[in-house]
């Protein structure tokens, strides 16, 4: 399969921070790759490099077989970009927005007029097509933004956090649209902070952390990489949380993660049943009351937490390991 996006050792420095550090990966034609990472991991910087908005300090990147440095303008006619912030003009109608973008892609007038109409229908915006965008809801704007990025039918599509801030229903609609595009052969590179989104849409996932590739593979490969299972404990009384964690810490392959709000402890373990029984016995012997005790397969969240340096706020890493 041809690589539609090739990134090789791309590095970008801003003042004293290394935004991208020797990043390399490829996306095959017709594939979806999710760039997963916390805020500040370098996802948007990478998208900006690949969409010719920003020049990398070093390294090489090719999109649709063209070099982002040398063939920037040619690349621009072969890509679509839908942003984190719905970049549509509030004071134009939906149709005017689409037609303007079509014109600027240098499509013929008859072509962009017809496609704008098609796009409005496809995005269920027909009724609102001639209303000013400032009257649109967030979900409508996002759909219009996506439609605008598709008006030239580009073979490569870049989606920078396409569903950030959308309600679940609108998000599902957008996922559906992206899946349709992929079925038609579009190559998609999307950034996201949501594991669920990466798992749902992507053929492969590249985890970015602090500017470097922390891991890559399919969702299952990433989970296997973490190995084993996750032991989960939910204590009845919040004040038991720390003590429970230190009691079972010796059973894990990694330090237990505490979620005080949920009174929950999650800990990667090598095996499963044996650790479950040992943990149950140890906790019962010390008289700690439990609401839940179990073993589950790791989720992509667990992978993400294990691989990246900045865990979500709710999780507290303890130094309770042996």
């Amino acid at each position, binding site marked *: 399969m041809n690589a539609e996006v090739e990134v090789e050792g791309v590095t970008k420095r801003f003042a004293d921070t290394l935004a991208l550090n020797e990043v390399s990966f490829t996306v095959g034609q017709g594939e979806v790759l999710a760039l997963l990472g916390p805020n500040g991991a370098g996802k948007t910087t990478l998208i*900006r490099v690949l*969409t*010719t*908005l*920003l020049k990398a300090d070093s390294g090489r990147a090719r999109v*649709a*077989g*063209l070099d982002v440095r040398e*063939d920037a*303008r*040619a690349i*621009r*006619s*072969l*890509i679509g*970009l839908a*942003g*984190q*912030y719905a*970049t549509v*003009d509030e*004071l*134009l109608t939906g149709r*005017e927005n689409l037609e*303007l*973008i079509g*014109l*600027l*892609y*240098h*499509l*013929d007038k008859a*072509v962009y007029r017809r496609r704008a109409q098609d796009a409005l229908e496809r995005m269920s915006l027909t009724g609102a097509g001639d209303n*000013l965008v400032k009257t649109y809801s967030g979900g409508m704007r996002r759909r219009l933004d996506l439609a*605008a990025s598709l008006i*030239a*039918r*580009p*073979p490569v599509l870049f989606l920078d956090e396409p569903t950030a801030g959308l309600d679940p229903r609108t998000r599902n609609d957008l996922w559906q649209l992206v899946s349709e595009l992929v079925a038609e*052969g579009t190559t998609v590179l999307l950034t996201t902070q949501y594991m669920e989104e990466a798992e749902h849409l992507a053929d492969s996932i590249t985890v970015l952390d602090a500017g470097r590739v922390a891991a890559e593979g399919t969702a299952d490969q990433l989970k296997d990489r973490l190995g084993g299972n996750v032991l989960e404990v939910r204590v009845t009384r919040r004040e038991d949380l720390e003590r429970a964690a230190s009691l079972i810490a010796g059973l894990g392959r990694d330090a237990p993660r505490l979620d005080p709000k949920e009174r929950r402890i999650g800990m990667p373990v090598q095996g499963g049943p044996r650790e479950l029984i040992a943990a149950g016995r140890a906790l019962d012997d010390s008289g700690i009351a439990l609401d839940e005790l179990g073993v589950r397969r790791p989720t992509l969240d667990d992978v993400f937490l294990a691989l990246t340096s900045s865990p979500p706020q709710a999780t507290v890493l303890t130094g309770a390991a042996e």
Partner: protein
Amino acid sequence: MTDLTTRPGGPPPQLSLRLALRDVGGITRRNLLRIIRTPQLLFMSVLQPTIILLLFRYVLGGAIRVPGIDYVDFVVPGIFLEAVLIGGMTTALALAQDLQAGMIDRFRSLPMARPAFLAGRTLADLSRSILALGFLIGLGVLVGFRFHASIGACLGGVALIIAFGYAMTWVYAAIGLTVKDPQTAQMAAILPMFILFFASSALVPVATMPGWLQPFARNQPATVTINAVRALFEGGPVFHDLWQALAWCAGILAVFFVTSLSLYRRATA
């Protein structure tokens, strides 16, 4: 152009002048639609010079004597210039807004001609300035201003005001792309307007200003342009002022076109 998904292969079509002008047309139209749909901004850009005109015609003008010319004929051309300067301020504001909203990212990711985005911005703002100028010429005549020279010279004077205003929109473009924040852009854009308009021969003769200010006030572009415009409206020798004014316009345009374009290429919100 085909209706099929474009595939790489073969060199991309060269960006012809025709396509570049079509880009400029598309962006200009977008900005004109925005102007029409925010009539309150259009109204404000006419209101401000109207107030200054009435203030200097009726409130302060009675106390100002300018040898050899009626004060109304002296001050009104200055206000015309102010009207195009204040029109340019919205260029800075609009560009900062587009930058923050991510519109500039979107446009820069398209195969459109790079200068077309700024050209479309400045041309739309120029159209609005011309509209405001038309209104103020009518108002000026109403309060007693008269053209004394040939129709050709007078049209030349109006054209010079427009040319100066257009050159200045590129200064405002550079300001907008530098400060990046709409509120700051609005404040920052007032500065050149204040300096160029108040420290010029627009409202009072330069000879009445303190000695330390005179060298600047006498030679800065707004004064030179206003003097040329007055000479064109009044009839009389214009050659010296005119070529200097045109040189300023050309110089400002050239320097700030290049500056703004370079800022646009590297723009990040």
